[in-house]
């Protein structure tokens, strides 16, 4: 194992590093079993086992993906301060484990829908850095052609349904996605992510009731970062055990900073949802930034708390320690990956800055769908004002 690694190190210096497809021939992609940091807690269900099977390549993918997400969010922070990103910018750093763990457990045919903290989930679903930055800066090459902004990232072909600004409104949409999957008899599930703030929304319980009533393959994932904007969870919720809030719907509490635990939970949830209907997952996670870029994040919590979580529970550090302890990579290799990612992100930002602003005529496109039907003319009947279906 060590021998192959040293020789591949030599090769590495001659070739450019591609973090996702490097260094490992399939023979050294051994399967590893790792225990999650904390056991799962179940509500009306037997929790899955703590031992997660993974492989060295999967751990490396976790590391590179999470580093890329972290780097992207930090870069977005600087871009916002440089006034290239305007409006609202909600950053996901600290919560990356949820995104990568979920991706590892499901396919692109399963759907994910989330609220406004969607940049990293978009990346996880196959979005590119260029599309992300271009959309954040309002350029034409953005994923929503610059018309959506930070809170409206979508990628329909990969099953990423966004990207929604109004708190809690995405949960009924997510149940609708599950309804459509059941209607078309697909064997897939829909994950509807929401935060601990949104967990107090009425429409969530309405949607949960319907999902349970009709056995929809919907998985509601509460990303509990313990603060609903500026309000701590104990000040907003009488019962902060969000995984128990489903009452008759089973729930599972997961350490959301441990990508492997997230992966195990999502896999378990998918199997459950396909057979028995909805399940709630509560991801115990944390965000280092404030609620959004206009929130310093330190008025309602102490800096010590933030640094404490960063030291003890940081998701990337956890994977780094695993990689080092299992001899899958050396310190230097990981540092090189991070450098490479930094460069990628900088290149994407430069390319996004080059991307043009949308054309003024784009103001009126995509309001209605073109297609079927009558053209509506202006008063003179000569110029087509809109083509309506």
């Amino acid at each position: 194992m060590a021998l192959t690694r040293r020789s591949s190190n030599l090769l590495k210096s001659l070739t450019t590093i591609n973090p996702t497809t490097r260094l490992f021939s399939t023979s050294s992609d051994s399967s590893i079993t790792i225990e999650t940091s904390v056991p799962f807690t179940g509500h009306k269900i037997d929790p899955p086992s703590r031992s997660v099977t993974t492989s060295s390549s999967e751990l490396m993918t976790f590391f590179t993906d999470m580093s890329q997400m972290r780097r992207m969010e930090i870069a977005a922070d600087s871009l916002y301060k440089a006034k290239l990103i305007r409006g609202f910018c909600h950053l996901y750093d600290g919560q990356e484990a949820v995104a990568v763990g979920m991706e590892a457990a499901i396919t692109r045919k399963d759907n994910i829908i989330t609220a406004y903290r969607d940049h990293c989930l978009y990346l996880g679903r196959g979005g590119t850095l260029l599309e992300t930055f271009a959309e954040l800066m309002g350029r034409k090459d953005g994923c929503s052609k610059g018309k959506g902004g930070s809170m409206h990232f979508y990628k329909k072909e990969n099953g990423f349904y966004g990207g929604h600004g109004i708190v809690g409104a995405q949960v009924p949409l997510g149940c609708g996605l599950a309804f459509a999957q059941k209607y078309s008899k697909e064997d897939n599930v829909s994950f509807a992510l929401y935060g601990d703030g949104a967990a107090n929304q009425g429409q969530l319980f309405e949607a949960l009731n319907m999902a349970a009533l009709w056995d929809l393959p919907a998985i509601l994932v509460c990303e509990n970062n313990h603060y609903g904007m500026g309000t701590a969870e104990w000040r907003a919720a009488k019962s902060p055990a969000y995984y128990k809030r489903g009452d008759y719907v089973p729930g599972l509490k997961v350490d959301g900073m441990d990508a492997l635990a997230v992966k195990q939970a999502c896999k378990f949830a998918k199997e459950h949802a396909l057979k028995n209907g909805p399940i709630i997952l509560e991801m115990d996670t944390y965000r280092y930034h404030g609620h959004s870029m206009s929130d310093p994040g330190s008025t309602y919590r102490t800096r010590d708390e933030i640094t404490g979580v960063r030291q003890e529970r940081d998701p990337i550090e956890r994977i780094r320690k695993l990689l080092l302890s299992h001899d899958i990579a050396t310190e230097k290799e990981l540092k090189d990956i991070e450098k490479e990612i930094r460069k990628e992100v900088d290149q994407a930002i430069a390319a996004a800055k080059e991307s043009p602003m949308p054309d003024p005529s784009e103001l009126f496109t995509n309001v209605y769908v073109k297609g079927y039907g009558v053209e509506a003319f202006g008063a003179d009947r000569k110029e087509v004002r809109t083509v309506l279906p």
Partner: protein
Amino acid sequence: MEAMLQGIGAASASVSPCPVDRYYRFGVASLQSLPVIRPEGRTIAGSILRSCRARQFITKAVAAKADSNATSAASKPGHEVLLFEALQEGLDEEMARDPRVCVIGEDVGHYGGSYKVTKDLAKKYGDLRVLDTPIAENSFTGMAVGAAMTGLRPVIEGMNMGFLLLAFNQISDNCGMLHYTSGGQFTIPTVIRGPGGVGRQLGAEHSQRLESYFQSIPGIQMVACSTPYNAKGLMKAAIRSENPVVLFEHVLLYNLKERIPDEEYVVSLEEAEMVRPGEHVTILTYSRMRYHVMQAAKTLVNKGYDPEVIDIRSLKPFDLYTIGNSVKKTHRVLIVEECMRTGGIGASLTAAINENFNDYLDAPIVCLSSQDVPTPYAGTLEEWTVVQPVQIVAAVEKLSQ
């Protein structure tokens, strides 16, 4: 860009006309020769067109006395239906035609619909396609929009339009705006329908007119049906439309009886209906007020006036072509609506006509709307919150001076 900004009603885009879209305007015979492949086509639309070609299809389906050649030549005696049966027929035909069409609402399935619009559909299509929901408007509207994002075509029924206020966020943000904010990735082909308007002493909360609240939501279309003929046609057109359409029905019109054609027909979503051509004054109306206007028209004719009555049908966008032609002919406009005075459809229509046809008007536009009050329970009071025929007659007389 300036020309675009003069746009009326809906947002405008100057795009080159898509020739295939004109099939609604052609007679039946030319449908065969139309190319089905469209320039920026959606293959789904293309295939549906292909399947329609075989059947006889009334395309220019406007119940206009002026151009009766298309309708009278093709229509047979037909069959008599009540308005809710016409809606049911339209819904049934569309559900049979496209397996993605489903109905979501309260009491639509086993109960058959609170106004019998979905009667027997659950027996025919099953519980999943005609879905009985719990009383949770916000979330079942959201669910329908989520399903529409993946390609289904849900028809959302609000038991009373007023209940859809609870779902306003879903209708406004997700239904109306998702196509835009996703840069065109998602289409939301939903139909949101339900009875609204002032009924017989139903009380304030059950007599609401939501046209005014929905009209500024970008991205949705609004239509109001008034006869069994246009109810069925509009229902079918709304289901086939790729845009979200809000179809306003009226509680008191469900038992109207009319003879409608046997063969399949679809009515254009953006066209107004010429109810009674005339020369002196243009009366624009929609939904139940059409009948009040027609009643007033009888009195007016006896008094020697010749009103032109247009049922605007399309509340968003307005059919300013038909309306414009009428204004150019008569030079006087009276708008009769059931919506509230403040911020209602009449207010927008007044602004639109003033903006576009100011030169043709001989007198300021008169707009008769409901009073800005919650609808009282007492019958006599309720009668005077909506516009009555005597008021219409008086307004026409004043306008014609």
